């Protein structure tokens, strides 16, 4: 294959999807190269712009970012943020959320019922205790068949895409609320409410009070719902999708050429790299050789001549110590983000690769150095990069 498009996006996670949608909305011809699922498929459904434990003044998203998020569908951005429940027993702030999750920010008048049900990792009494005095565990029939006690969250959630099954669940929850003898303002369930689309609003309408999920484990229902929403969005635009592994990106004869595994290539006026960070597979940690053969401990998995990895505003050093980088700098959050989460490609505000990289090349999402590894920031950076790539005049790579 050898096709010329305006914008090629490498990666189909949160950032890649946003970039493709934004570029397509501006009339650009767009192709997305997608490999296996990355970090975006492991999301828990909480949308953060930054660290949720720090003070928030709202997500502060630009209108164009909001428009693309609305087009994606299935997500909510309350004006003053949300209060979500985690299965680690924490009630946390979020700038937005997957619409299947229960937001308890406005639940004041009465308590929240926590449905007791035999699902893996779901201890309603312990969670109610940890979440606080507003929460009370009640007996509820959520599991219909014996095999559902051990089904993975995604498979269990998929069953509630069936309207008949959702109606059955609504009837059971109404019975449980009536039998509890108390008045509740909302019901929280384990991850379970749909994969094709969030079913919380439908269930809430049937039960008569807000119902929703607590956040689940990575790789659960929220990640699967993102993938479905992405597939709908990209198929509704003029976006072509190619499955396969991109091996490298290089300027070629006034444009960009993306080499694919198997020998095919894609030619594009501009390229958005959204291959993810360490978790998504866009960057790789490499075992460190000892001096004098020491090398940098990270590398891009995509061959991209001239593009350097950086952290803390500086190009990545080769460790001079015989013992390489200290573990404290690498792995665990302390006062600063650890290097594993900071390493990336430097960009300017539009997402254009900076620091001497070739023009017409953009990066977004977790591939960007020193950016918070959060859903909303990745999405916003994708929109900005896709917009800038689509507006780039069609005079080829190296012409800036």
């Amino acid at each position, binding site marked *: 294959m050898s096709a010329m498009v305006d914008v090629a996006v490498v990666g189909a996670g949160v950032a890649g999807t946003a970039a493709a949608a934004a570029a397509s909305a501006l009339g650009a011809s767009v192709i997305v190269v997608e490999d296996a699922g990355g970090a975006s498929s492991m999301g*828990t459904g909480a949308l953060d712009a930054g660290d949720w434990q720090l003070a928030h003044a709202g997500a502060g998203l630009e209108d164009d970012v909001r428009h693309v998020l609305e087009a994606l569908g299935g997500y909510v951005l309350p004006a003053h943020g949300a209060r979500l429940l985690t299965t680690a027993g924490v009630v946390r702030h979020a700038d937005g959320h997957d619409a299947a999750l229960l937001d308890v920010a406005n639940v004041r008048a009465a308590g929240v019922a926590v449905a007791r049900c035999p699902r893996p990792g779901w*201890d309603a009494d312990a969670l109610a205790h940890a979440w606080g005095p507003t929460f009370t565990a009640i007996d509820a029939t959520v599991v219909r068949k014996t095999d559902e006690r051990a089904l993975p969250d995604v498979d269990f959630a998929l069953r509630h895409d069936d309207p008949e099954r959702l109606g059955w669940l609504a009837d059971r929850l109404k019975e449980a609320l009536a039998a509890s003898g108390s008045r509740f303002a909302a019901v929280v369930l384990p991850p379970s409410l749909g994969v094709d689309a969030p079913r919380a609003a439908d269930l809430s309408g049937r039960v008569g009070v807000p119902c929703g999920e607590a956040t689940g484990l990575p790789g659960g229902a929220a990640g699967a719902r993102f993938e479905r929403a992405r597939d709908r969005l990209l198929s509704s635009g003029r976006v072509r999708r190619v499955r396969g592994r991109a091996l490298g990106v290089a300027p070629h004869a006034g444009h960009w050429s993306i080499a694919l595994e198997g020998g095919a290539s894609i030619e594009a006026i501009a390229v958005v790299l959204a291959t993810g960070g360490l*978790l998504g597979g866009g960057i790789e*940690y490499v075992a460190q050789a000892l001096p004098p053969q020491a090398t940098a401990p990270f590398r891009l998995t995509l061959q991209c001549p001239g593009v350097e990895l950086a952290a803390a505003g500086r190009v990545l050093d080769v460790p001079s110590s015989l013992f390489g980088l200290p573990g404290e700098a*690498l*792995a665990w959050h302390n006062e600063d983000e650890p290097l594993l989460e900071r390493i990336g490609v430097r960009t300017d505000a539009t997402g254009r690769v900076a620091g001497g990289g070739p023009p017409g090349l953009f990066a977004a999402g977790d591939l960007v150095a020193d950016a918070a590894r959060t859903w909303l920031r990745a999405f916003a950076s994708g929109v900005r990069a896709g917009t800038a790539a689509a507006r780039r005049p069609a005079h080829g790579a190296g012409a800036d």
Partner: protein
Amino acid sequence: MRCAARCGQIIAEEQDLPPSQARALALDFLERQARARVVAMGPVQARQEVLSLAHARASLGLRR
């Protein structure tokens, strides 16, 4: 991670400590484990470490 969170809750309950202390106990444990692992980290485990960090941050919060 959820096991550490639950263990922290149980210990805090037994010792009459506030829920914030339960979180701190879980984070202390997770951090000690991560620091012990990292000295032998390879490419695959590096991805696992990032996933652990992301999940702990999303579900528990990493700041004490």
